[in-house]
């Protein structure tokens, strides 16, 4: 099907994921029938993955600017100003479908791809995070997928020498046939050394650098734009193979070249490889590009033009240089033992022209691939949000439930995962995995970047709008809880089939809810991607709009962590606990119900509470803070105790009917803080003055008669921290090792 003069049949068009109307539009744009190479190019550029045809209309509703935003969506990654001439470059991207088909390579190349997006802008990657969602643990494939994905992420990130400092791992049956791998990379660059992808000018050399092109990954973007079926595993050849060693060389070579002023534009070859990089660069530069495929470094013999244009071989970049600087650039890439080839030049024709063996094999207007790509306002239905207050058994012993919750797949320690990632390389990881947000020191300074990935998919299922707001609010809280100011977000919008009105309703409401929260919290979205068609045999995933937040910590010496620091500290809860059990982990794990309204998010309160807590940390008055989220208050207290080895005694004199909702409800906008008792009064007074609800929950430092640290309270029989720790630590390793 890849011979140059293959006849274009309706079957062939369908196999390329294009419908009749789309094909007619291609004929109209070209004024003739496309040939097979052109059909392939349109197929990837007009795929959901590359064109955002179902979401572009709605994505415009997201706020993307702020005084500190240097680059919003539309480039390889977003950029924010972090002061002193430094900028932070970051993005998150999904690699869901490949990671289900081939977990190790799919996850590894997901990490590699997002790192290239960051260093192609001139930034050195300084941190990685990963948000992972797997099917239920009892599903026969889950263990194999967890094992492969984690190993793949580790193998790539560890070799690159970029610390993997955070992320999340959750399980739910809707991901049984469609796991999610969302990889985020954060890099640092100088404000006057940022590189963009606009291939401006005419007659400038277009150079190909990095690995050779092979047959791997052909049609990856098209695969990522279709739902899964039983044959999906036969698509393994469309998953790319990663080589982190080459990527490390490519990183160093690119940064070395970027130290000169030889580059006009540069972009990585990610999804849709040579096709999307050349078309997008010409489009942004308002120019044209002519490339000669005979000059492309090739790993295999007899590659066709079709295969070369659609290959997703990894570790490749396309750059436009200033004329006459080719030799200088070539020297650098040869030093790093990488391929370097001038494969074409920019033109003023606004056309993408591809030659192979002396023949023109593709010739089309650049805008046909970008602006003219289909844009759909798909019909959608807004489902009524789940509502009501579910019933629960008020007689269940609270401490027994806590022990059970700490050992559930979603709340257990993820140590088994992050110990496979090098999180200390680069010597700046000042807050390591296990806290609310990871913190990486800005090299050579006393400032830090705080980072976190967040979303609570069960809330998004119950109420897509409120759930998406909550994802943004929780990110804001996690960044705040270490003392940092949240600055901007990247997003990975994982949803199911946009052609189904109910699923499209989840997308629209999710985006709108996210936008509302971003606006209220001055927390714009600067980069990201959409991953749709996450459904298998008709069953969609929980809506999962993951957000990756970045904040700036002014002084790492005043960073807060979740671990208790001293005995006899007062434990305070900032924010009101109403006892919202709907859609809580408690309800699901203990009562076996996924019911009720998800907790409402009050964005005004989020901002107010965040400002209050951050102010105390920045003033040096608070060093122990934990966001209250999944599992509620008692789980959060237990996590603080476990992180420190210091126990706690709680003043839990509640009515029986209120006890369980108070301990396990997931009301939003709350922080747990601990500080010396004599300083607590001032904080309580300040909170009262600001109109912020605060409750004195107890004290740190409880020990048993044997001297063992314990967690206890009224109605809470003392349990040793080691017992809690076993419950918390054992589930994942014993699941994975059996």
């Amino acid at each position: 099907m890849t011979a140059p003069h293959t006849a274009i049949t309706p079957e062939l068009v369908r196999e390329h994921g294009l419908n009749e109307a789309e094909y007619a539009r291609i004929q109209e744009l070209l004024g003739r029938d496309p040939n097979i190479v052109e059909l392939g190019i349109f197929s990837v550029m007009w795929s959901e993955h590359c064109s955002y045809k179902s979401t572009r209309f709605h994505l415009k509703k997201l706020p993307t600017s702020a005084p500190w935003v240097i680059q919003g969506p539309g480039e390889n990654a977003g950029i924010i100003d972090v002061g002193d001439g430094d900028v932070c470059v970051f993005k998150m991207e999904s690699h869901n479908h490949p990671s289900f088909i081939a977990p190790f390579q799919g996850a590894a190349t997901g990490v590699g791809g997002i790192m290239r997006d960051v260093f192609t802008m001139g930034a050195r990657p300084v941190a990685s995070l990963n948000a992972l969602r797997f099917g239920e643990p009892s599903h026969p494939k889950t263990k194999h997928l967890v094992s492969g994905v984690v190993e793949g992420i580790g193998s790539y990130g560890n070799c690159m020498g970029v610390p993997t400092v955070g992320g999340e791992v959750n399980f739910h049956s809707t991901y049984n046939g469609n796991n999610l791998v969302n990889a985020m990379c954060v890099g640092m660059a100088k404000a006057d050394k940022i590189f963009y992808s606009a291939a401006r000018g005419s007659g400038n050399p277009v150079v190909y650098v990095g690995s050779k092109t092979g047959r791997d990954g052909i049609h990856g973007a098209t695969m990522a734009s279709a739902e899964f079926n039983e044959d999906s595993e036969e698509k393994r050849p469309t998953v790319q193979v990663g080589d982190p060693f080459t990527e490390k060389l490519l990183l160093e070579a690119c940064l070395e070249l970027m130290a000169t002023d030889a580059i006009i534009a540069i972009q990585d070859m990610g999804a849709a490889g040579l096709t999307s990089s050349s078309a997008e660069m010409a489009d942004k530069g308002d120019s044209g590009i002519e490339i000669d495929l005979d000059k492309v470094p090739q790993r295999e013999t007899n590659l066709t033009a079709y295969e070369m244009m659609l290959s997703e071989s990894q570790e490749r970049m396309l750059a436009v240089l200033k004329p006459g600087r080719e030799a200088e650039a070539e020297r650098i890439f040869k030093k790093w033992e990488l391929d370097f080839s001038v494969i074409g030049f920019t033109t003023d024709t606004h056309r993408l022209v591809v030659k192979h063996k002396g023949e023109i094999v593709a010739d089309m207007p650049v805008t046909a691939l970008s602006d003219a790509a289909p844009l759909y306002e798909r019909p959608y239905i807004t489902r009524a949000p789940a509502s009501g207050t579910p019933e629960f058994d008020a007689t269940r012993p609270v401490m027994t439930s806590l022990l059970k919750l700490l050992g559930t797949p979603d709340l257990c320690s993820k140590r088994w995962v992050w110990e496979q990632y090098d999180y200390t390389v680069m010597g700046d990881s000042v807050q390591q995995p296990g806290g609310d947000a990871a913190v990486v020191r800005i090299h050579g300074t006393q400032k830090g970047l705080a980072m976190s990935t967040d979303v609570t998919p069960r809330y998004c299922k119950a109420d897509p709008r409120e759930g998406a707001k909550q994802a943004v609010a929780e990110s804001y809280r996690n960044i705040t809880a270490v003392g940092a100011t949240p600055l901007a977000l990247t997003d990975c919008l994982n949803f199911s089939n946009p052609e189904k009105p109910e699923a499209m309703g989840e997308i629209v409401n999710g985006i709108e809810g996210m936008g509302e929260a971003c606006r209220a919290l001055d927390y714009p979205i600067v980069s990201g991607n959409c991953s749709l068609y996450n459904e298998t045999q008709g069953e969609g995933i929980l809506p999962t709009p993951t957000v990756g937040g970045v904040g700036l910590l002014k002084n790492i010496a005043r960073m807060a962590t979740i671990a208790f620091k001293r005995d006899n500290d007062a434990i305070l809860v900032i924010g009101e606990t109403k006892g919202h059990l709907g859609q809580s982990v408690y309800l699901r794990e203990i009562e076996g119900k996924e019911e009720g309204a998800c907790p409402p998010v009050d964005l005004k309160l989020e901002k107010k509470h965040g400002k209050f807590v951050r102010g105390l940390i920045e003033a040096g008055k608070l060093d122990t803070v934990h966001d209250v989220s999944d599992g509620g208050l008692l789980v959060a207290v237990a996590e603080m105790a476990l992180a420190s080895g210091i126990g706690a005694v709680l003043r839990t004199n509640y009515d029986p009917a209120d006890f369980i909702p108070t301990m396990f409800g997931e009301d939003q906008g709350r922080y747990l803080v601990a500080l010396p008792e004599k300083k607590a009064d001032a904080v309580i007074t300040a909170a009262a003055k600001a109109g912020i609800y605060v409750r004195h929950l107890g004290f740190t430092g409880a020990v048993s008669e044997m001297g063992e640290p314990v967690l206890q309270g009224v109605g809470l029989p003392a349990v040793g921290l080691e017992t809690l720790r076993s419950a918390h630590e054992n589930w994942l390793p014993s699941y994975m090792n059996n």
Partner: protein
Amino acid sequence: MKAAVVVFPASNCDRDAAVALEQITGHKPQMVWHADSEVPEVDLIVLPGGFSYGDYLRCGAMAGQSHVMRAVKEKAEQGVRVLGICNGFQVLTETHMLPGVLMRNAALKFVCKPVGLTVTETQSVFTRHYKAGQRVEFPVAHGEGNYVADTETLDRLEGEGRVVFKYAPGENPNGSERDIAGILNDKRNVLGLMPHPERVCDPLLGGTDGKAMFESLLEALS
């Protein structure tokens, strides 16, 4: 003390080593590229952690064949101190500058975590600032740190006081024989170890137990 850090393709702890050296000695070390066939006149050569040449073939195997390693070997024979950390230790065994081999971790997984170590030998330029039997904590971050050698070699290493660090009882992260974490060559001027002392020279990064190694070297070589 003058120091050099060798940079192989895909070394990735070269900067970390340089930062720690500069912090403790007050001088930036010289960075030496793998293709160079000469090593400058220095008192200490550091082979840093990372994945030299992608760790393809075997960890450290291709780096062992590099131009620069011939020069490093010559320097070591002349008595220059050589410190191989993690991948650097693997390179040292591949070049037979240290005995034994580093196999895949017993659990077959990469492992990154702080690990307790016992300083078992303080009669060396690398460890004189530690106390004999002192417990220290360094992070490990490796997939192939499982030290293996024949019984005779292991007996000799222990008998000659060349096992410098052992994993603390119950904390062996990789299955190394006799809990060996770091060893000296017979002339005692070459040390290889899997844990990372350069990552614990800053209190913000989880401890300063690694400083004493660089301070030992500074005192001995200044």
